[in-house]
């Protein structure tokens, strides 16, 4: 049973009649989004209280007591027609504000240049004005506490963008949890939560490869350092998803120090791997007893989408939907190396006979 609670900062108000819930959860994002419709009666005092415009009411969506998302209502759409229509509200998870806002120009938050501070310290300083809580995955604790020599935010840069720019230098991913906390983590190889075949719960499976976004060789180049070190470049990094033709790609390093060029190239290759995408439509949203969320891995075998071998994918995005009939889910999956930054494995190796190693 789905429950919607709206908190106007005075009391929790439970909404009884609502429908068409869509919740989009993303791994590499602090803004999971939701949209739903509810029956609005202007003569109902409670409805008037929780439907206020511009109040950014807090909102929680639960399924049988399991919290799916904790966020704020951003938008509301009223409509009057011959037949009674429902009010549409939408919003995002609590840390979503970091995607929309820059560092406030206050003495607490400024200056936005730091020297010798760690990501944990910078994050705590940046989030202080927003009252958000930080959760640090134990596996990134050491990196969260290691200081940067110097960091600098652009005044117009969103807080999420600034923190992500710093985090990626340490292979740290910033995401959020269902309770509205901002989470610093790292994708590691974990046991898949489910093994799919060409059967239910899958109702539709699609594998897409966009070759235009893939390159055979990737170089990262960097300017000379202000301390006097030479301009640098990474060794050419190969992408196994373009093993035959020559498609070079050059990327300019825009953050970090000149010792980071190899890592910049790896990050660029990891992003390219997103061009191989697995989309699964499921007839349910619970897998292995839990609501499916991004950040987990699954395995799948289905020759009809060219997956002849049991292959592991990483769930990057999940769309949960519920209407009057059922709860369903759409999974957007990518190769695990998109987030582990490890050397990618060519999952189609050995399938064709004309290039047996590619």
């Amino acid at each position, binding site marked *: 049973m789905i429950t919607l609670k709206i908190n106007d900062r005075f009391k929790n108000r439970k909404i009884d009649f609502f429908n068409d819930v869509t919740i989009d959860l993303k791994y590499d994002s602090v803004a999971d989004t939701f949209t739903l419709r509810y029956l609005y009666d202007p003569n109902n005092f409670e409805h008037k209280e929780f439907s206020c415009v511009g109040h950014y009411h807090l909102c929680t969506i639960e399924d049988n007591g399991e919290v799916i998302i904790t966020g704020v209502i951003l938008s509301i759409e009223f409509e009057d027609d011959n037949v009674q229509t429902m009010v549409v509200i939408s919003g995002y998870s609590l840390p979503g504000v970091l995607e929309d806002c820059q560092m406030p*120009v*206050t003495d607490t938050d400024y*200056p936005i*240049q730091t020297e010798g501070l760690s990501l944990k310290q910078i994050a705590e300083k940046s989030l202080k004005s927003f009252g958000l809580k930080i959760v640090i995955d134990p596996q990134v604790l050491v990196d969260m506490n290691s200081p940067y020599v110097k960091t*600098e935010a652009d005044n117009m840069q969103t807080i999420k963008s600034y923190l992500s720019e710093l985090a990626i230098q340490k292979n740290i991913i910033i995401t959020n949890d269902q309770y509205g906390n901002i989470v610093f983590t790292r994708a590691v190889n974990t046991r898949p939560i489910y093994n799919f075949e060409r059967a239910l719960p899958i109702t539709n499976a699609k594998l897409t490869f966009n070759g235009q976004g893939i390159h055979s060789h990737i170089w990262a180049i960097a*300017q000379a350092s202000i301390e006097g070190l030479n301009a640098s470049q990474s060794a050419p990094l190969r992408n196994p998803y373009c093993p035959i033709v020559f498609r070079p790609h050059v990327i300019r390093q*825009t953050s970090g*120090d000149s010792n980071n060029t190899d890592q910049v190239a790896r990050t660029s290759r990891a992003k390219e791997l997103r061009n191989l995408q697995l989309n699964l439509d499921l007839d349910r949203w619970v897998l292995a007893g839990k609501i499916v969320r991004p950040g987990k891995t699954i395995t799948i075998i289905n020759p009809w989408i060219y997956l002849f071998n049991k292959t592991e994918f990483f769930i990057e995005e999940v769309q949960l939907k519920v209407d009057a009939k059922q709860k369903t889910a759409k999974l957007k999956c990518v190769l695990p190396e998109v987030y582990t930054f490890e050397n990618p494995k060519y999952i189609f190796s050995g399938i064709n006979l004309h290039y047996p190693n590619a």
Partner: protein
Amino acid sequence: MLSLTKVISSTLNNLGNLVVKLTKSGKSDHRNVIEASPYGLDSNPIKGMVAIYSDTEVRGNPVVIGYVNKNRLAQVGESRLFSTDSDGELQFYVLLTNDGKLELGGTGRHLVAFEQTKIGLDNLVLLINAELVKAQAAITVAGGSYAMLPVSVNIDAAKINEITTP
């Protein structure tokens, strides 16, 4: 992107870079930025100067590439190098004028050239020695004696080899 910023103070870091503390955008946006300058020119701005802040390819590595000077006096074609105290009061200047002169801090007095001074002194020595010869002859005619020692002068040690003029 370039920005106009205001200098608060400056220090030297352990690499000998001049690090300018400045206010970038807004009252509290203080940043420490290394100054870039023409090779061989070592100057240090006073508080309140407007500095030109420039980002580079890598975020966090901006540089100050110049200042909007407010003590400009040089006429067309001239170059002027100057120092001030911390309040901006002029202390000394070197001016290359557009009529071919070099001013060192003012126009009231003139420097002298070594070569002309040496020639003048050598000529003076010749005249003095010629007069001494005459004096010796007169003394001898009068029955006296005068053992003349020629006068000489050597100013070579006063020559500054590192500075030359046309």
